[in-house]
């Protein structure tokens, strides 16, 4: 049981950190520009595909560096020539725009790369078990994923709290008008934040692609979870997004690893139902089965009882 717990924790952390790389960009974009970027996970997918193509010719490491740059540039272009134009029509229009963008990116990926699963492999350099515990290997690549994510977190934290740009961004999150009045080029900041945010998503895609398989549905699988994290964490709160990412990562991992379900609960209470009962599905439900639903349940509960999210300060 102990080994299951340890590995569940490790897996949860790997997923959690990965989710944070997506959520950090999204929460910055969301809180600054008020745009719920539906296409954020699509940039993550683009990152994986670009890295895959680059890795075919130049190896994994080139992909690791250049794919996020390409994705970030694309993101900045989308902001400059798409979102900014739509901005005049209000938030709903922006949101619908990103919604359509997500759709278009998925279709374009199928157009350029085809619909089958891509053979995007981990680099040979990291193709060894980092350590073996209770007969189970923890691959070096997962360790690498974790290291990158933590590195990004620290760098982001440092930039946002210590650098001048970071302080302007922080100010723009809470008081966009004032920052504009102070003479800062807010559109340029927006474009930069959007670019960096999407580049982070792209980086997440690069490192997740080999492990979570690179296929056209990979954005959909992750898309709304990242949304949920940003809301649970609270608008404009990077720390909140961090906590929520780890929370969701661990929650799902533990739920899958556990073996408890309604039958256990019922037998604990001394109740039993036969299989023919109309609510049989309810009585036989177990935790691993509902693991994917838990984030949404959490979302609804948080929104009902604490609409600002865990660490959020602003309501709208």
């Amino acid at each position, binding site marked *: 049981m102990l080994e299951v717990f340890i590995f569940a924790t490790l897996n949860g952390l790997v997923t959690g950190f990965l989710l944070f790389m997506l959520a950090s960009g999204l929460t910055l974009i969301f809180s600054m520009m008020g745009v*719920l970027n539906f296409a954020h996970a699509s940039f993550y997918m683009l990152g994986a595909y670009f890295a895959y193509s680059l890795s075919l010719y130049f190896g994994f490491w080139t992909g690791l560096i250049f794919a996020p740059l390409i994705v970030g540039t694309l993101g900045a272009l989308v902001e400059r020539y*798409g979102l900014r*134009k*739509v901005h*005049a*029509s209000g938030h*709903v*229009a922006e*949101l*619908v*725009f990103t*919604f*359509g*963008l997500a*759709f*278009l990116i998925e*279709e*374009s990926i*199928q*157009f350029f790369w085809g619909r089958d699963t891509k053979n995007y492999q981990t680099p040979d350099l990291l193709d060894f078990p980092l350590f073996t515990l209770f007969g189970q290997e923890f691959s070096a690549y997962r360790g690498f994923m974790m290291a990158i994510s933590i590195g990004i977190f620290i760098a982001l934290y440092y930039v946002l709290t210590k650098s001048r740009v970071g302080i302007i961004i922080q100010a723009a999150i809470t008081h966009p008008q004032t920052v504009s009045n102070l003479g800062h080029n807010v559109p340029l900041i927006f474009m930069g934040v959007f670019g960096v945010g999407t580049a982070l998503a792209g980086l997440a895609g690069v490192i997740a692609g080999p492990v979570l398989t690179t296929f056209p549905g990979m954005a959909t699988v992750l898309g*709304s979870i990242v*949304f*949920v994290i940003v*809301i649970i964490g609270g*608008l404009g709160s990077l720390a909140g997004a961090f906590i929520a990412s780890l929370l969701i990562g661990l929650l799902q991992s533990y739920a899958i690893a556990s073996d408890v379900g309604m039958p256990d609960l019922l037998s604990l209470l001394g109740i039993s139902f036969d299989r023919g009962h*109309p609510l*049989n*599905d*309810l009585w036989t*439900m177990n935790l691993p*089965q*509902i693991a*994917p*639903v838990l984030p*949404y*349940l959490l*979302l*609804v509960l948080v*929104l*009902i009882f604490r*609409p600002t999210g865990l660490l959020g300060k602003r*309501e*709208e």
Partner: protein
Amino acid sequence: MMALLKKSSIWIAFLIALLGLPLLFDSILAISILNQMAIAIVFALSYNMLLGQGGMLSFGHAVYFGLGGFLSVHALMLIEYETMVFSILWIPLIGGLFGLLAGIFIGSFSTRKAGTVFAMISLGIGELIAASSLIFSSFFGGEAGISGDRTFGPTFFGFDFAQNIEIYYVAAVWAFIATLFMWLFTQTPAGRMANAVRDNPERAEFIGYSSRKVRFISFCASGMFAGIAGGLFALNYEFITEENLNAATSGRVLLMAYIGGLGYFIGPIIGAVVLTLMNSLLSNYSELWMLYLGIMFLLTVMFLPRGFAGFIMMHQLAWVRGNMKMLIKPYIITGIPALLFALCAIALIEMSHTEDEVFHYLGFALNPASPVTWIVILAIAGGAFYAVKRSFNQLNDAWETANAIPKEEES
């Protein structure tokens, strides 16, 4: 009497159009598409009650559609096993009733706030219910869904509704009734207040309305009409699956309402018709149709922020002032190269995708392997693009003159 007749003339025309269309288009496919349209119109209009009139952005509207549909199929089964005896004509009412109940329950906590909080709760609820529908397979039937048979129950003047054309008339009448009631709703104080709360909740509160209560009423009504659409779906297809309440369906109704034009009552109707047609016909011609749909959608959001209906309404002023003829020529001059450019772009996309040696396109046999084909098409596309660019100013000028004083606020 005459005044009433004049006022309701548009409704009479709508009814005649609904009932008359199958006489013009009578193939099985056409009836199938008309059926889809009737359902989509009710569904998209119900969504517009939320977003267009109430300012509530929902990512989970399919929940009410789907739940109404599931209950309707269960009702069909009960009729089949003679647990209940009533004509299947009333099935949409059951869907509507259940959509209303679901709306009352979910609305009781989700309408407290508008804006992002509401949007996110709707997303969460949508995902929750979609996921639970796969877990509770005795009610929802798992991924294969549940199915019934509409030919049981008392017949209606001898009709047993075995044929799709018979069910189309049922759907058309229901769609008409639902549309009429949704329009009437916009005329009630509740409907008017929904607009007020959308635009400025504080002011609405000042004149003594609880903005939460106003949102709640719109929300429940919208859930009910979505349920009616779900019931119509159940009648038409005699089956329903979890797809009908998942995020994809919620997204599609958002697209319909948005492309059609949110601010106008007729907008979602246009959106429903256009998207249904594209969905049914475009996929026949190209497997890349989803790509085109995505491109078209983005272009609409970027250049026609108020949707197709908004585009049509833009011409109201010119129409009233009798200046439409000033616009016809510039439209044609810009429109033809624009169309040519679009056709060339499609040819290029299709050619780079095809594996065949000869690609048939608009009566031309193109050779994707030869660079000459590419250069020629690229040249035409370039020329067309240039022509659009050149003539666009002219169109702009014509537009200005046609709409010259008194200029109306456009946003």
